[in-house]
């Protein structure tokens, strides 16, 4: 696999980004992905459910990752979580982070601040309109994340397969495809659709370095094609494992129950699934490609395996 313009932009070898999954994208995972030539991303609250302690947590994570790799890695900032408070951003900049991913909020809010400090910004989008707005706000690349992806999703429900080519046609900056990509076939498809690289979350959860609970990793490996479900339509769309909790939420939704009620049923239950392994009673977000994840391997092996397999698939087209 040769370098794409995304690799040049980020100073990485392969255009493979590990998603900065909330609570579980820790230092060891990010460092392992970056060491293998991809781009690892840290989530500020990895391993720390108490958002009040997230500042120290982020600093420690960055320092730990830096002790494990000299290669670039990034930090993910969900804008709805940090708002206009730049404390976390300043910590990342002080500690030498030069790449961030942002999402769930206006890219105009922090992008100029990042750029003044030499930080590259990749912004998550779910429609052509979002992508055009992000490009106008000056971001360096967009991550076009489809309906297949795990966790919080856009109400527009555009799938990776149709969103990526339309975003590629609309913007001039690099486009990273995300959602439903779990192996080299998905990567080759994304590149055929015009993407400059891919971001994967679920595939990187099922790795030895990810700090997620073993029960949660095992649930991903055990998942079949129909084991994820969308809840929270009309309020906050979330894709995750179909379990006792989602069954209860969906019953309420079907009966026309209030959106607030569904959100309340979910709040604080991510931690139960992701960090404590309660995959029946907790909110176990993961992507629709989970059924394609067949084993728990090291994050470096994920990157290396994808690269080798990608070349083989493209040669066979």
């Amino acid at each position: 696999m040769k370098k794409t313009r995304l690799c040049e932009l980020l100073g990485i070898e392969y255009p493979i980004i590990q998603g900065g999954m909330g609570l579980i994208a820790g230092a060891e995972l990010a460092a392992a992905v970056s060491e293998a030539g991809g781009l690892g991303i840290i989530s500020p609250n990895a391993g720390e459910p108490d958002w009040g302690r997230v500042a120290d947590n982020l600093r420690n994570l960055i320092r730990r990752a830096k002790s494990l790799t000299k290669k670039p890695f990034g930090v993910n900032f969900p804008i709805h979580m940090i708002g206009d408070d730049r404390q976390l951003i300043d910590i990342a900049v002080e500690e030498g982070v030069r790449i961030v991913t942002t999402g769930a909020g206006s890219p105009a809010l922090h992008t100029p601040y990042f750029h003044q400090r030499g930080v590259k910004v990749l912004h998550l989008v779910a429609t052509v309109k979002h992508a055009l707005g992000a490009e106008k706000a000056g971001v360096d690349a967009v991550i076009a994340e489809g309906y297949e992806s795990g966790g919080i999703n856009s109400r527009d429900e555009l799938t990776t397969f149709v969103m990526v080519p339309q975003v590629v046609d609309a913007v001039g900056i690099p486009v990273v495809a995300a959602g439903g990509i779990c192996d080299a076939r998905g990567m080759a498809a994304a590149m055929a659709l015009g993407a400059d690289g891919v971001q994967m979350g679920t595939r990187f959860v099922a790795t030895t370095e990810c700090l997620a609970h073993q029960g949660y990793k095992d649930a991903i490996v055990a998942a079949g094609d129909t084991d994820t479900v969308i809840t929270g339509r009309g309020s906050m769309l979330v894709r995750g494992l179909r379990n006792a909790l989602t069954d209860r939420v969906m019953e309420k939704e079907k009966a026309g129950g209030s959106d607030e009620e569904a959100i309340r049923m979910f709040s604080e239950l991510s931690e139960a699934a992701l960090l404590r392994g309660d995959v029946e009673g907790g909110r176990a977000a993961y992507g629709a490609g989970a059924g394609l994840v067949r084993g728990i391997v090291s994050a470096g092996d994920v990157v290396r395996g994808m690269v080798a397999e990608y070349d083989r698939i493209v040669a066979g087209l």
Partner: protein
Amino acid sequence: MLSIEHPVIQGGMTWIANAELAAAVSEAGGLGVISPNAGMRLEDDMVQNLRGQIRRAKGLTDKPLGVNLVVFIPGIEELIEVVIEEGIEVVVTSAGDPARHTGRMKQAGIAVLHLVSSVKQARHAEGVGVDAVVAEGFEAGGHNGFDELPTMVLVPHVADAVGIPVIAAGGIADGRGLAAAFALGAEGVQLGTRFVATRECIAPQNVKDAIVAANDTGTAITARNLSPTRGLTNGFSAQVAEMDKHGATADELLAFIGVGRARMALLEGRVEEGEAYAGAAAGMIGDIVGAGDVVNQLIEGYDRIVAQLKEGVSN
């Protein structure tokens, strides 16, 4: 397997997959597929309509043709006999158990392709002897599987699960989609919406124009609890969405939708009031061209993209 030149199948869209469209696709080296109710009135005889459509198509091309059969509809046996009598080479079946009629058609020398939307359905179809499965993702127009699996994840899952060829459908409109489908493990593609926006399709001009005008967010799923259906967002879809939101029952929804609601949009051209089936690929369709041009552009686009991808790999 289908004796066609290009692995491109035109979806047998209800009401509007007519003889001229199917013949043009087959003439260009793909596989054109006729819908038994193409162009007919609600009160017409579907068996006679199908026979007429097949004969017209056969008058326009000597190449293989297909017919789409919805398994659960009453009178399916008669339609199958017409297909056999008129010498159709390929049948695409959907919405029903493939165990019921695959044997009869295969006995008559017809290649049977069955539409699936999950691994379980694909394995079952393979088990009852179909020749290939059409793995149709959540992006597709019209009635969709309850599991809502998008093409990106459905195709590799199905390709891993079955030994027979997998044809990808849903969200494909150009050579990029064709190349992506092949990368995911498909051996062919089926396109519906792209073929509606062609000169040969009998859908009225304003339906074609509405597809061309649609952008990335121009389609939506409605009636999730009844039968998830994708179409252009319009007055009809807004009303159904509103009913869904307030917990409307299946009977209430059925009463509102009524009979012939899709025909109203697709054949009568009442694109605001009718159920205007269209796939999520509508946003990528920017022109109305000949159906043969669609096939040629798909193949040219595929070749160009694959050449680019090959340049990007080592050695």
